[in-house]
């Protein structure tokens, strides 16, 4: 799924060499506040050998404006810690967090509060709603904290309530709502201050599969309107594939691979990634451009398809013609030819451990 609007080339949030170590004396492993080290693996093992817990090891990634960046990992992989480092709910041991080019870790408490009030929104796995406030007061809570007058904050809250489709529930208390509805409140609250950066920490993990699917659609619908810069945490690989523009897979506190979902499928970095990608319904992920092979041959007599056509829609054509189809880019130029052979080659690179040579 693409949300291609927004300027994907501008970096909104950047996480550079972030380390988070728990234990007696986490600072002892770092010379400076910067997390740049010669050999991250060696340092990691040294930290572990010293009876410290390594939650994040040398994590670096960029989130672009308007992008959905998904961090996927199993429990204990450090994904929840890293998103808390990004918002400084957890103080990183070393590294840099750049928001609009400014280091968040150097901000004073007052500045940080100001940034959280205006630039950040966060959605939590178990919703984190205030039990003593009804829906509209929960959503207006961040505005109340800012000291905005009651009438103004209710007006703003009503707008986001409409956005998440909770009209008519304003006076209900969280305990009177279903899980899906509670998370809508959580989403609405995080959007009430119109943040630039939106953190979602496993927002749909506590929901039933069917509701989860609905909420994912809802989420994508909202994002298509608002174009936030998003960091989305999940342990569900399928969910990551559905919503990610780009994704990172974490393991033992470190990032194993970053890329578009299709990159992960076609060229998994190691067997760990391959375990996830194996069962993926590739035909509904791969697009014509992903399997197109540049060619010097004439393509005029071949059928033409758009680059973003899903492979599953091409299967019958590929089966009937050995020559394949020409893949046309958005600007009208021909990218190459997609054939049964190129498809097989692309899949093979994702399955076997030895990369297939072109």
């Amino acid at each position, binding site marked *: 799924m693409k949300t291609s609007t927004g300027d994907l080339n501008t970096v909104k949030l950047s996480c550079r060499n972030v380390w988070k170590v728990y234990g007696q004396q986490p600072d002892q492993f770092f010379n400076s506040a910067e997390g740049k080290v010669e050999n991250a693996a060696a340092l990691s093992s040294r930290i572990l050998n010293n009876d410290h817990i390594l939650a994040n090891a040398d994590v670096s990634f960029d989130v672009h404006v308007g992008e959905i960046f998904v961090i996927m990992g199993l429990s204990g992989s450090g994904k929840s810690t890293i998103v808390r480092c990004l918002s400084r709910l957890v103080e990183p041991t070393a590294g840099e967090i750049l928001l609009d080019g400014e280091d968040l870790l150097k901000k004073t408490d007052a500045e940080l509060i100001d940034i959280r009030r205006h630039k950040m929104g*966060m959605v939590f796995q178990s919703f984190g709603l205030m*039990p*003593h406030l009804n829906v509209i007061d929960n959503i207006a809570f961040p505005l109340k904290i800012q000291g905005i007058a009651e009438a103004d904050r209710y007006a703003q809250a009503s707008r986001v309530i409409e956005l998440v489709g909770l009209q008519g529930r304003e*006076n209900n208390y969280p305990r009177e709502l279903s899980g899906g509805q509670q998370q809508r409140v959580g989403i609405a*609250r995080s959007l009430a201050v119109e943040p630039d950066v939106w953190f979602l920490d496993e927002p749909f993990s506590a929901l039933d599969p069917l509701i989860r699917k609905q909420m994912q659609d809802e989420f994508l619908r909202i994002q298509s309107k608002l174009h936030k810069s998003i960091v989305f945490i999940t342990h569900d690989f399928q969910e990551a594939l559905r919503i990610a523009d780009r994704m990172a897979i974490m393991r033992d506190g470190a990032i194993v691979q970053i890329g578009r979902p299709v990159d992960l499928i076609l060229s998994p970095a190691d067997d760990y990634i391959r375990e996830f990608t194996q069962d993926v319904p590739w035909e509904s992920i791969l697009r014509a451009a992903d399997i197109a092979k540049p060619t010097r041959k004439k393509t005029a007599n071949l059928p033409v398809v758009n680059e973003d056509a899903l492979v599953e829609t091409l299967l019958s054509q590929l089966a009937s013609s050995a020559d394949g189809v020409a893949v046309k880019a958005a600007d009208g130029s021909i990218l190459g030819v997609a054939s049964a052979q190129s498809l097989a080659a692309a899949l093979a690179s994702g399955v076997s451990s030895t990369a297939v040579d072109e």
Partner: protein
Amino acid sequence: MTGTFDRHFFHWIGVVGVTVLCLWLQGDWKWLSEYPGDWVVPVSDWLNAIMDWIVKYSGWFFLGVSWVLEWPIDAVRVVLNALPWSVTTFVVCVVAYAASGWKLSLFAFLSMLYMVVIGYWFESMNTLSLVAISVPMAIVIGFSFGVWGFFSKRAERVIMPMLDLFQTVPTFAYLLPILMLFGFGTVVGLIASVMYSFPPMVRNTIVGLRGVSPEVIESGLMSGATQRQLFWQVRVPSSMRQILLGVNQATMASLSMVIIASIIGGTEDIGWEVLTQIRKAQFGESLLAGLVIALMAMVIDRITAGLATRSDNYETGEKTFIQRYRLWIIAAIGSIVFGLIAQIAAPLNDWPRAWEIDPSDAMNSSLTYLIVNFRPQIEAIKTFAFFFVMLPAKIGLQQAVSPFTWGFALTTTHKIIYAAAILGMVTFLSLRGSQKAGISVLISGIVIYFGLAGMPWPALVLIGAVAGLKIGGPMLAAGTAAGLMFIVMTGTWSEAILSIYLCGIAVVLSFVAGSAIGIWAAHNETVSRVVRPFNDTLQTMPLFVLLIPFVMIFKIGEFTALLAIIAYAIVPAIRYGEHGLRSLPDTVIEAATMIGATRSQMLWQVKIPLALPVMMLGLNQTIMYGIAMLVIAALVGTNGLEQIVYIGLSDGDFGVGIVAGIGMAIIAIIADRMTNAWSRKRQQELGLSPS
């Protein structure tokens, strides 16, 4: 199946060996059975000296505090006494309505009417005025300490043991220092009541603030809350329910302490009324006055509990001033209206003496009738309990069995049969693999034969310490030994044993009977519904009141004390028994059903073993309740530590009273730590989360 004998078993055999050795030697070495008077450490003299010094040099300070506190009490008292009863009643009814609805409002109305009609309005208002000052103080102090303990681990480590001490030191015991420092008067009741009632507020505040989920805190932080906003707008409101529960508990504790404090007199409140009537053996009057306390406790409890659990379903949004403050306005207007009417219609202001109803004579004569006509039965019950339960526990079969009591003398044959039966049981149990049960039987067998009072103190201290070691580890063992040695060395051991004996019997009986009722209630909805209001009532009843019915029938003495303790201590046993059985995981029950367990197998082999940790928490509470009631039971004539505390209070002997009080606190704390540690250990073994 034969069990292997592990080192624990041999440790215990060693303990039994030492015990037997002590028993054997105590004829020759007198110090084994009785701690010599020369060895007593004069802690009480030291304490008295310290107290004298404090009173001498800083007495003015406390008297000043006392003088300052006297003002608000007097003010509230004057207001409550000046207000027409109809106005006060109306306001209470409106509050009751706001807290939980018209049913409670009606109950509050009838209760207040009872106080008026029976002629105890003045005394009731005096009690209420003390509560009205003490509760806000307890709440503010308790909340502050709770917040401090929440933010500072170090503060919590200091605060928590202090709370334990405040709640386990017998209530009478700390009336004494307060009396000496603050002088005679209502202030003593106030301060004692604040000291007794702020601990539950601290605990609930800490539990409440701790219980706020981390994500709620994080969402507050991400909303950009400052530390102050985070505290007052996120943490406190999110934990309001728990905090209000603390308010409820603090209020009940305050009322109960105000009543107890009236023992020092000079207050003209309802507690004093009950006490004087009991002392005059006016049972009708004491019951009528006692009922006032009970009703007052119930109304206050239901109102505060109602406020704590009320679901705030008021609609926000468009609301006029009148809608928002409807009840306040009704209360204000109603008060004025009633106040004005009362100026014309005097009975609404002051209930005429002539209209008071006094059924006490009728009650007294029917009681006399009961006692006269059922004397043989009453005596039979008393004698049976005394000869067959209380005496053996106290002085052992060795002395309790005589032709006069049991109808035969204890011959050598009897002794051999007894020893053989105990040893046989021990061997049987040990070989079946349950050496712990075997050891318990062996030690109980010895104690029952020689009696608690006949056991040498070194043996009992050793048994306590080793039990502490096995249940909770070296710290508990050391604590137990040190605590018991304090009692021994201050020369109050023999009284302590009498306390343990009386409370022990009451606890065992309460726990067995209470658990049985609880188990029954867990299986039967009707029983459960019938038992619940009884429990609620017994638990909210100030301890004084519970004595009344038993004193009426059985006169003063240990048996009356025993019954009163049981009446109070049985409640937690019932509650936890039912709760333990009801909260078992369904899957286990289903699995056992599918295996084909019969009803009794299900109960004895599945439900009870699994529910045991929770039931042990019930035992813990049973012991605490038992000790609390034991202190009050000193009023009806017991001989243990509680009596020394009481005597210390009446003689104004601070040192003696407080040493005995600390002794009781030590016993309570040891019992608490042991049962808790056992329950926790067992729960971990079963893989259940501690509740």
